[in-house]
């Protein structure tokens, strides 16, 4: 065991000699929008708690949605992530500080992401696959432990299997997708009708009619109160 640490430290010490400048990193991701049951958990803690609007999330925190939950999270590096019901992922830690790469670990469900344009800073790992993003809009769906589907709406995404036997990667462009299956080489590119997947997420932040009605009613009450206060003051 000690020898293993020694080997690790050999590499770590070598890094000190390199002495490259480190970029500044934003620390917080934040909740932009949510509806229904959406929960967050601090890294290392066992308790899930309901998230709140604009809540700040730390790298390594987990976020999950219930059957009726959905959320939009703005990551620290400005990428936007939307998660559908029954999804779970970890807020990325900037694993590679020098290259400033955010690494999302997705555990289940559906995740839509928009990375910064022409930027190679976002990676998403699912139980059986991994993708690197070269801008900008893509969709990842975990269809059980052995299959993940990737679809690209904009930009280019490089997809590869976590299976050691299949070392190569697949480049997906606009309106292309693929399903990565355990034990199979990810080589099939599937076509999508352009725009059809983006459309699915167009109204993502739209709240249910009931919720909209409640929020509008609350705003109306506040408007009444404001008018009364201003008149009194006058």
């Amino acid at each position, binding site marked *: *065991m*000690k*020898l*293993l*640490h*020694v*080997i*690790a*430290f050999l*590499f*770590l*010490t*070598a890094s*000190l000699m*390199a002495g490259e400048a*480190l970029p500044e990193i934003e620390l917080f991701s934040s909740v932009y929008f949510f509806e229904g049951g959406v929960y967050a958990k*601090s*890294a*290392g*803690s*066992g308790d899930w708690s309901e998230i709140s*609007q604009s809540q700040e999330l730390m*790298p*390594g925190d987990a976020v999950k949605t219930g059957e009726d939950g959905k959320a939009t999270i703005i990551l620290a590096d400005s990428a936007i992530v939307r998660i559908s019901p*029954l999804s779970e992922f970890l807020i990325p830690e900037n*694993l*590679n*500080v*020098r290259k400033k790469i955010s690494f999302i670990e997705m555990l289940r469900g559906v995740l839509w992401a928009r990375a910064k344009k022409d930027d190679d800073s976002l990676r998403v790992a699912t139980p059986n696959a991994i993708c690197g993003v070269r801008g900008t809009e893509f969709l990842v769906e*975990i*269809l*059980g432990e*052995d*299959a993940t*589907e990737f679809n690209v709406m904009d930009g280019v995404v490089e997809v590869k299997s976590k299976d050691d036997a299949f070392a190569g990667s697949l480049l997906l462009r606009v309106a292309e997708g693929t*399903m990565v*299956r355990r034990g199979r080489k990810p080589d099939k590119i*599937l*076509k999508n*009708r352009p725009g*059809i997947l983006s459309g*699915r997420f167009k109204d993502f*932040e*739209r709240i*249910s009619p*009931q919720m*909209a*009605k409640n*929020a*509008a009613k609350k705003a*109306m009450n*506040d*408007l009444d109160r*404001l*008018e009364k*206060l*201003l008149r*009194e*003051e*006058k």
Partner: protein
Amino acid sequence: MMFGKQIFLMLTMILVAGMAAETLAEGTISDAISRRMLLERKSQMLKAKSPDSPKFKDFSMRSDQFNSAVSKLIEAKKVLAAMTSLAGWDKLLSEWEGVLHKILPPLSRVNSDLREEKNLFNRFQFLTRDKEFARLRDEFIKASFAVAEQLKNGEDGQLQEQIQNLNGKKQRLFNIYRETERKIKRFSEELAKIKRDLSSGSSSEDREKGKQVQEVEKKLAAGEFRPVEDFLSRFRMPGKPEGRKELVSAGGEIDMVVRRLRLQLGFLARSAPEDISGLYREALQLLNETDRARLLSTLPRVRALMQQAIKGLETESGTGKDRVLEREIAAYEEELALYRQDESVSNRPLLQMFESRLKMLKNLKGGNATQLENAVSNLDSIRKQLSEKTSRTADPSALLDQLTAIRERIANMELSDAQAEEMQEAMERIKKSLRVGQLSLSDTLLKVLKRKVEKIK
């Protein structure tokens, strides 16, 4: 000779390590390197910035001790490592990768916690006057060191527990920082507003008040909130150039209500359809008015915009809802036809129940949202049971094959926008059932989709 052999082995080790590093999981080694660099840099920064602070001195000392211990360890074991047989390298490196995965996340966490804590502490050093805060901070730093110590010694038995402990302390500490941040922001905004109002006046009274505001700003920067609060509750400016007066607490409430209203309208604007969100945005714009008299005169327009938005929302949700419902009903009917053909479920009470609930759903068109949601969820639950009772056995791998095949087929078909959308929705349903492990239902839905494709063809 022996020395030569050692050098040869050392060189080989470095070469092999380099090659093996390339083949390791992407990013692992560079990630380790980056993290270690960050820790080292942080220590240097702390030393450079606040060399006299006992806390930072302590951190720097421990960091130096850590590095020196590592160097000694490396020196002492170098020869031993070099003597390890080449055949063992693969195994060692793969084990090492496992160790790194275990060590790096907590190390990163401790690192980023300390880095952030330091940033916040530099901004709010005045908080140490609060005994409870000082105690919490001491505990947090001690807990961080305890974690670092364990990592250093390679003792990971209680690491998880220690990290939980650290997180709990961090959360309490950071809550105080956040609360302080919010308070300072709120007070600064109010003071800036008062200053703006005063800048238009030229009386000696205005100048006197201006001086008072400057004093209060200094107190705010020093974290003395009580005098700031007292000042703000006594001096609230209504924004009228002539006849300013000291305001009672109503001024505070007006600001609070405006803030709340702005937040609500912002949320509504973000979540409403485009044409409606424009109305909310316009209302939001009107609430930017800082002059109270003018603000009051714009309120009727704000009200009209909000009422228009609510009306628009009702119409929009009505048509949208019906469109979605029609598609849902069509999909259920396709499924029903399939179940009727399946001998294992035909004429069963469950099937009859499905039929009657579907009929109910059809009658609910144009009904209220709650009734519709209940009816759909009822139908879904029966559908799940029904699907599980079919004679088909579903293999997930085969289902995925079928899904891919049908997707390819659809991609090659000439479809109208509406048809393409319908197909997409059907595939979404299949994927959803696959995700939650409802394989029989996926199978049924796949069959429904195939029939649909056949029909269009």
